[in-house]
């Protein structure tokens, strides 16, 4: 027979279960967004740090219906911090690898050749953190501009301008590749 939980421990366990139930549906999405922003190799660290931030701020979440944009905001902030911290480290340009989907198979989108991807990777890591976040949320999570604006607490015009500025730089890299 297990020893009886003290009210304090029982309360902590209940809070933990409550937290898991709230964030569980969104963990995969957070990981994918993190991978899109900082790269696959550092996605787990950023996702875990973001979830830890969410745990710390869990008590202040008043509207559980807004859990998803709340988690997006936390992840975006953690990703920005990660990129800032990375400034003091040697910059790693990821080596092009064949993209895989959730089933672990090669991506069917063979239009992206490895050489092209390498050029786009290099252009992507030169984008600002804000541009990366907006592009990732828009293209990797298929969030609309209003949804991103709500998540990040910024005007829609700012989201659009960040997406456009980031896209312009990627397009420039892609066009240079074509020439």
């Amino acid at each position, binding site marked *: 027979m297990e020893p009886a939980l003290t009210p304090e421990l029982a309360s902590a366990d209940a809070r933990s279960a409550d937290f898991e139930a709230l964030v569980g549906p969104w963990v995969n999405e957070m990981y994918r967004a993190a991978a899109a922003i900082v790269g696959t190799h550092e996605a787990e660290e950023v996702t875990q740090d973001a979830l830890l931030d969410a745990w710390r701020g869990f008590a202040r979440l008043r509207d559980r219906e807004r859990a998803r944009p709340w988690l997006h905001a936390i992840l975006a*902030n953690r990703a920005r911090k990660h990129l800032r911290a990375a400034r003091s480290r040697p910059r790693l340009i990821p080596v092009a690898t064949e993209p895989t989907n959730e089933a672990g198979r090669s991506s069917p989108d063979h239009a992206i050749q490895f050489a092209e991807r390498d050029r786009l990777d290099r252009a992507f890591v030169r984008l600002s953190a804000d541009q990366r976040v907006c592009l990732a949320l828009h293209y990797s999570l298929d969030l609309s501009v209003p949804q991103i604006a709500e998540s990040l607490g910024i005007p829609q015009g700012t989201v659009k301008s960040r997406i*456009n500025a980031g896209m312009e730089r990627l397009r420039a890299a892609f066009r240079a590749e074509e020439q």
Partner: protein
Amino acid sequence: MSDPFEPVESVEPEVAAYLRSRGNVKVPADMLARTVDRIHTEAEGTRPRLARWPAFAAVAAAVVLAVVTFTVGSRPNLLPDGSPRATAVGHASTGPSPTQNATSAASMSTEFPESVMGMPVVSIREVRSLIDEEQLDGLAVAVRGYWIQPFVHSCPAPSRFIAPLERWCSFDVFSDIGYAGWNCIILGQGQSECHGNAPPVGTMTLSPIALGDAGGMDVLSRSFRDATNGIPAVLIGHAQDPRAWQCPTDIYDQCAREFVVDLVAWVAGETAEISQTDPSLAARMSVADVAAAVAPFELLTAQVLIASEAPGVDPRLHSAGGDLVWVARSISVIPSGSGDGTRSVDVWVIDDATERVTWHLGLEMGSDYAPGRFLAQSAERGSSQNGLDTFYRVELPDGSPVQDLTNGGWSSSEGTFRRRHPGLPSILEAGNYVVRAWRTTYDDRFLEEHPDECATEFTIAQSEEVRLEAAFPSRGGCEWRAPTFE
């Protein structure tokens, strides 16, 4: 040029596919389980930390209650020229004096608020940790403590322009324990001797910098009349201010670490209002109008300025000419999500005549921000005539104004040439620019036509410093050249 606020019309499918593929990754199966394990482990570790402040406060209170009460007499003139009415001998004590802690207990009786503007109020220790970890770039935090004004004997000005975030003649201390910043001893016959005091041992301090855009300073200043052991206050501020780029490059890191005050939000029980208006500038908009313009963000600072002065608040802004603009900072209505009580800060420029937002950007400098610095100086034959000075405007190649520059108020002579030394540098993204120079009076500096005007193109790279000199020979006219003096 495409409208930056409209979506990109067409996106190459390869680029869109590339972006989608970045997030099309296999998520580790046990991701949530491992994360929850870590949450449990680290959450356990955070519990004692949350209890640290009350314990620290109890120790601090015990220390300050153990010493005797001491009050000082009338305050000497603390103007930077170091000429107090009474004879003053200024020097910092090398250690804590038994008297300087004396009345801290009385000051501690004012209870700090738990939050201001919806932000949790944190300790100086926590803020210093955030600064050390470079976690206050583009983020504001609310911090509690005592504003201590130390005794300032003198601070001679260097013979060059002083950037806003350079620590010149700025000795104010924000301390987690109230103490007397100075003591004066009345010697009789109108004479007194004053000593500056170092913070008591173990005190955690910040050295806040409050510039012209900081709100609530008037409330703080009023409170100093009755203060002997610092003013209990809550400051909202940030670090990594873009004005750090205006500092000489060798002290950039120091400037970037400065805690810059946005708002003195609470002073000894009084909540400060955001009221930064220059009555000499006849603004149409009120602070309330500015607050409405930045909604749903919460207004943090608001200052009405001549457009050419806006880059003095944020050097990334392109703003020139003599129209009135409001430069404001706002905080997000939702926490930054990092759990450290911070809120993201945005910068706004609002045209006073049209109430239109002309600039809106995050305060965060961004990981790749490494602008160039452009400095302009001039040399003119003969002495200054009729109050003429040299003015400069940096433009984009298409003629769009970027920033106006002035001299630094410092001049020297070499033979028959009068040298006018550079003022605030223009902080520019890498690219091609045009700079124009002309001489006129201060009041006429924004007129369209200027005699002796000359222009030149220049290119600036990331992190590069470019310095050019406009020469005004006695025969009239003007030409740009490489600098002939430092």
